[in-house]
């Protein structure tokens, strides 16, 4: 198949776009596709999606001033993060916390990690993580009416909470 645009080269890029239910097809060579920015136009990037999630924000009290935030370590501002949809360093998660928490809630329907913990994480982190896992386990045990096992898990949660309060290693 020959490129529709230059009628010279072999068409190697084939795109289909559906707008309001009308299907449009285009067959272009690499060069013409590149010039037309086709690859970009026909795909939705992560930043488009994240940008969309970030945009319609009510001017709530919590998020006021978030746009002005700047990370002292990497220098990234919240506005830059919104443009790139990528963070600049680990510290950004703390600095932009107020803006990130609602965003994570939208993407993941959760804002609390409960998966693997690095083996070299400090014992406080490991205990906190364990606590989150146990609380989830307790929920599902109660739901499935496994009260005996739920009581055991509840006791472990209490012990862990006491340890964490006292700062026991």
């Amino acid at each position: 198949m020959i490129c529709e645009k230059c009628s010279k080269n072999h068409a190697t890029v084939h795109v289909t776009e559906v707008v309001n239910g009308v299907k449009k097809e285009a067959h272009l060579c690499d060069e013409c596709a590149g010039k037309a920015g086709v690859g970009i136009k026909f795909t939705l990037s992560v930043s488009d999606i994240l940008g969309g999630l970030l945009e319609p924000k009510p001017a709530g009290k919590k998020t006021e001033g978030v746009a002005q935030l700047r990370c002292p370590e990497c220098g990234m501002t919240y506005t830059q993060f919104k443009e790139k949809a990528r963070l600049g360093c680990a510290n950004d998660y703390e600095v932009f916390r107020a803006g990130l928490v609602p965003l994570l809630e939208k993407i993941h329907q959760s804002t609390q990690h409960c998966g693997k913990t690095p083996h070299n994480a400090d014992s406080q982190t490991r205990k906190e993580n364990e606590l989150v896992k146990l609380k989830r386990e307790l929920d599902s045990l109660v739901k499935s009416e496994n009260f005996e096992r739920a009581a055991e898990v509840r006791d472990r949660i209490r012990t862990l909470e006491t340890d964490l309060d006292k700062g026991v290693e």
Partner: protein
Amino acid sequence: MKVDDFLGQSGEWLKGSGPESDVVISSRVRLARNLHRFPFLTIAPPSERTQVEQFVRERFDELLAPRKIQYFPLARMSQLDRTLLVERHLISREHAQGEGDRGVAIAQDESTSIMVNEEDHLRLQVLRSGLNLEEAWESLDRLDTLLEQHMNFAFHPRFGYLTCCPTNVGTGLRISVMVHLPAAVFSKQMEKVLQSLQRVNYTVRGLYGEGTSPIGDMYQISNQVTLGKTEKDIIVELRRVIPEVLKFERSWRHKLIDDRPRMLEDKVWRAYAILKHARSISSEETIELLSALRLGVNLNIVHGVPIETVNELFIFTQPSHLQKIEKKMLEPDERDVVRAEFVRKKLPSL
């Protein structure tokens, strides 16, 4: 090992030997990790990338070499070599086209690879043939734990493993199951599949990942949520979803056999005939015909063509593979001739 050596073998995951391999091509699990105290790559100047690569390589040499995992510095490799790795699903397109110091460590059997300085400092992946999530995850988890003993990853008690993009934060775990759905596509049922998967938070993409359109009736189904669930939860949930997709595809395959057996046989045999006799064929046409042939092999319409051969042809007929095999750059129309010849040679006469 050199990149050219890959041409003499095919990835373990292409064997077509894993569970449910009539529909599931491969299972891929990947973890996103960043090094503690290094800035993310979004804003990192070139010198930081160099430092990250050096830091990682020193440890890789010691840890991975005995495991037959070898490092390839992409910045010093030709574009053709880099695209070959994309075609083999060992690195992403973005990584091949990226800038600055970056690389990939690849296991000899191609089941494991670690991209260095892609979007995150490290992207660890394990590939398995068929539906094999648990084994793939266990292998990936061991690799992650091994690395973690020699480098600190950025971790936050609330947000988990910290990633450049908030869509990966938490576990950093993305599971992609590559499925072949020719009957669902042919029967115009894909909209249903896509919509129902999206409704339960799964993404569906084409053969080569993000931003690629579906080709050859191949789709990658992956989890969107990485935070707030354990790695096991993510696997268990996908384990519940995938069988529904398999059931759906198989029921449409059987419907085709029952309702339109002649049409189906004709479609399959025509695909074989063109592949076996064409003198010039585009990459796109090859993939579409291979898809029909694969369906024919799985439905016992065609006997004597190993599924492994069909799976391999999907990869080896890609542009970079052909040019590496021919050892020279080829224009698209020259590639079409070489491709046709390659397919003719590989497909057994029946």
